[in-house]
């Protein structure tokens, strides 16, 4: 696989720095005029219950493969210049970064569309699971039927 795969879609335990990812995507082209970023963070409340901890698990190789498919399709379908996707796994505290999608393009409209599509597609197709710890115990969240 290309180096693009290794750097542009990642699943990792450690935190990421939004500015670093944006600066990396800027280097791809001097024709980038708009960059839309979606950052998902750990909320305290879920269905009215207080969450104390989140835990993410993924299916290695398949999850990375799905993220790369999303990146390729976003570039193709929305005409953006580049996309970076990073998802963290392992224990995540309230307020911490979970997932980042960066869509860079010449104009803003396609970057909004691509970014919003990509996070929905990630939730739909990428084998990553979230376990929430609340006062009543631990539960695997099942969002997608």
């Amino acid at each position, binding site marked *: 696989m290309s180096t693009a795969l290794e750097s542009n879609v990642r699943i990792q335990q450690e935190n990421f720095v939004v500015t670093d990812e944006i600066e990396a995507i800027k280097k791809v082209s001097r024709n980038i005029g708009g960059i839309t970023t979606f950052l998902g963070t750990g909320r305290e409340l879920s269905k009215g219950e207080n969450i104390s901890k989140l835990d993410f698990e993924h299916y290695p190789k*398949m999850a990375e*493969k799905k993220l790369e498919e999303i990146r390729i399709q976003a570039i193709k379908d929305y005409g953006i210049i580049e996309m970076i996707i990073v998802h963290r796994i392992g224990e995540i505290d309230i307020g911490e970064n*979970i997932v980042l999608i960066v869509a860079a393009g010449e104009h803003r409209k396609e970057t909004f569309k691509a970014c919003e599509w990509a996070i929905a597609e990630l*939730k739909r197709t990428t084998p990553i699971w979230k376990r929430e710890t609340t006062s009543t115990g631990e539960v695997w969240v*099942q969002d*997608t039927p």
Partner: protein
Amino acid sequence: MITVKYFASLRSIAGKEEDQFNMGSETTLINLTHEISKTAPIIGEMILGKKVMVSVNLDVASLESIIRDGDEIALLPPFSGGI
């Protein structure tokens, strides 16, 4: 041998991370499901009732799919990545 991987809630139900099944050189996912049901009927029901998705060598597959010796099967509960 065919490897079956269990993820998230499925791992708790199975009580293990993966299984090995000897199904000959070629069979279908539905036959593998019947084999799984012998020791874990709940999981068999979840597969047949589409409560979990099944992947073959990293791609989502239907129950009619042919699987071969050496394939990696995974049982995937509904995803909840992102936020």
